Every structure is written in structure tokens, then in C-alpha cells.
């Protein structure tokens, strides 16, 4: 299998704004060069203030998401409180490292709001957490999106600007990557609400 991370395709991107965060993903699910479906969800709401985006092998996206849902539900039941985004970010890293010698073929991005402060973390497939930057990308179209992000991004944007910037970056990146695209979905999380918008990309 040449590139198990490229088998199903897909791209994700996360950005920090002023007291808000945004995540975006494409909608394609394919098998190498063949597209199976164009409504594949890759961003999941783990908690009211935490979003988890996953790109990589479809089966491991399902499995890893289910694992994280289980962890956070058990945490809520046992500790009778919500999990903080920084805690969840650490949880993802350790859950990935638990499978160090048989990893999940996913590259997650975690984004959340902790007391209004935006949190963004990305990982490789074995749990190396990186939470230093203001935007992160993942997936087959990642490198293309990096370029667009670098050009459009500025710190401390408000939710409307952030939605525009992340949408444009995703669309530009996915239009160039053969394995990503077929539409995009943008999630913007503020203290008050989560807005979800569906975008059009080049339909190929």
C-alpha cells in the first residue's frame, strides 16, 4: 500500500482567532483514485467547547473518534465535570502513543476554548503534540493549505474574518490536491455558539 495515509484522502485545517477557533475539512472519501462518497464528516464535536478533526485512514478515523468519545463520556461520568480542552489535547497524545508500535493511521487536530482562550494542537500519528502555532493543517492537501494559510492568516481575527480566511485556505488547498475536495465544511466555535457552513470547491 503506497502511502496508507493517502489511501482514503482528505484534508483538515484548524485556526485560532480572538476568543474563537475554526476548523475546516473537505468532504471526500475515496479509495485511491476512486471517489466513494462526497459527504464524509471529518470534524467531530467532542464537547461544547472542543472540536476534534481527523484525517487519514477512514477505519481508524471511526475507531479513534469512538475511542475519544468513550474516554470523554467516562470522564464526565466518573468525575462529574467537563473535560478541559488542554486535558483533552493531552489525552489524544497519550491515546496515540499507547499504540506506538501499531499506530492509528490518523493525524488529528484538536481545537477548543478554555475560559475564552483558544487552544489548538496537532499531532503526528504516534502522539507528538504540537501546540505552538496559530494554525495547523493535516491530511493529503496539507502542504497546499499551508501556503494559503500563511498568506491569508493574521493573529486575533474575529469569528467572521476567521471563517472567511479558513474557508479560502481550505478551498485553495483542496482545489490543487487530487485526493481532497468535493466540498468543504467550516466550523467556527465561539463562547456562545458553534456555526457550521458548507462550501463549494472545484467538483473534481
Amino acid at each position, binding site marked *: 500500500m503506497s502511502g496508507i495515509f493517502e489511501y482514503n484522502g482528505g484534508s483538515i485545517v484548524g485556526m485560532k482567532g480572538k476568543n474563537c477557533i475554526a476548523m475546516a475539512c473537505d468532504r471526500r*472519501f475515496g479509495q485511491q483514485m*476512486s471517489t*466513494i*462518497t462526497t459527504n*464524509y464528516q471529518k470534524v467531530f464535536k467532542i464537547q461544547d467547547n472542543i472540536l476534534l478533526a481527523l484525517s487519514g*485512514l*477512514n*477505519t481508524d478515523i*471511526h475507531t479513534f473518534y469512538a475511542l475519544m468519545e468513550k474516554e470523554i463520556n467516562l470522564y464526565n461520568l466518573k468525575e462529574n465535570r467537563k473535560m478541559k480542552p488542554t486535558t483533552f489535547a493531552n489525552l489524544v497524545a497519550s491515546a496515540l502513543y499507547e499504540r506506538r508500535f*501499531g499506530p492509528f493511521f490518523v493525524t488529528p487536530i484538536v481545537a477548543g476554548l478554555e475560559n475564552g482562550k483558544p487552544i489548538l494542537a496537532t499531532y503526528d500519528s504516534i502522539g507528538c503534540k504540537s501546540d505552538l502555532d496559530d494554525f495547523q493543517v493535516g491530511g493529503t492537501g496539507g502542504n497546499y493549505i499551508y501556503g494559503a494559510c500563511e498568506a491569508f492568516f493574521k493573529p486575533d481575527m474575529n469569528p467572521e474574518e476567521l471563517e472567511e480566511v479558513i474557508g479560502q485556505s481550505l478551498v485553495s488547498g483542496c482545489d490543487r490536491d487530487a485526493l481532497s475536495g468535493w466540498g468543504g465544511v467550516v466550523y467556527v466555535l465561539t463562547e456562545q455558539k458553534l456555526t457550521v457552513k458548507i462550501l463549494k470547491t472545484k467538483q473534481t
Partner: protein
Amino acid sequence: MDSIFGLQGGDFVIVACDGSIAHSILKIKETEDKILKLDDHKIFGISGEGADRNSFGELVHKNHSLIRYKTGAYMNLKETAHFVRSMYAQAIRSRDGPHQCNGLLGGVDSDGTPSLYWLDYLGSLQKITRGAQGYANYFLLGLLDNQYKPNLTKEEGIEIIKKCIKELQTRFLIAQNKFIVKIVTKQGIEAFTL
């Protein structure tokens, strides 16, 4: 070499499969039913080597029944699809390796909602309205995309399946003469050969 393809309509789901079993250049059988009946309202079309197809099919069928007997509740389509997915996903990192078969799971829930799910041997899962497994993908996806519209009637669905069969018979290198088609509606499962 198996062709499994299916379609979801307004109130029904169709899954069709070719009937042939082959060993190298020899066609052993033309009327093999590769669509498993999980219960009165669920069917699971499986494509893959005979042994893997049969053994995984039995595994799914028996575990599905076991859950019903243990919990007393019927699983709906979404639950069944996730259950079958988890069987695939557990196997990929197990000692014996993945179950070498792909599938299309379709059916109608007790409230009449139809659904069709695409599952592959790694445990990928997607809810679809039309799709295929194996080589049939290359020949039929375009045709299914073109002919599909929301809320199809059963007759329109069968017409589309007939067109798909004609397409495979015209263009696919491996001659596939007989196809087994199963339709699930709220009333139950109908099966026929085309």
C-alpha cells in the same frame, strides 16, 4: 471479481450481486447467492473469496442474532452497520489479519426509513445512496450517479439495476450472466434473478 452494487430509494433498498463462483478459468456456479439475509429487514451483500465471504457472513449473522437474544432488542440499520464495522476494525490488527471481504449493508428500519451502508475490509464505513464494491465501481458509479434521483420508486429502482446489469454484461471482461437482486421494503425482502 464479484460485483456487488446497490441503491437506496424513497422507501426501499436494492442490493444486487453477480451469481458466479470461479476457480481460475473455470466457472463453477452461476447462481450463488452472495447477499446474506440478516433478518426480515436487513440484507448484507458480501464480495470476496468464497471462504472469507462465507465465514465472515456467518460470523455477522450469528453475532447479530446473539445480540438480539441477549438484549431483547432489534438493532436498527445504523447500529448494525457500526457493529459490522467494529468486527472489521477489530480484525485488522488481530493475529489472523483482516476479514478479506467487502460489503454493502442495506435495509429498512421499523419506521420505514431505508439506508444503505458501504463497508470495506479495513472497517471503513459510509452511508450512501448508491454504490458498488469491487470492479463494478469502475463501470457503475458513473451510471448510478447519472440515473439516481431522490425518492425513487421501486419500479424506477429496478429499472436502474437492469441498466447496471446491462452495462456490466456489455463492458466487463468477466462474463456475468446471472444476477441475484434483493429488495427490502417495509413489508420485507423480495428476491429474484435477473
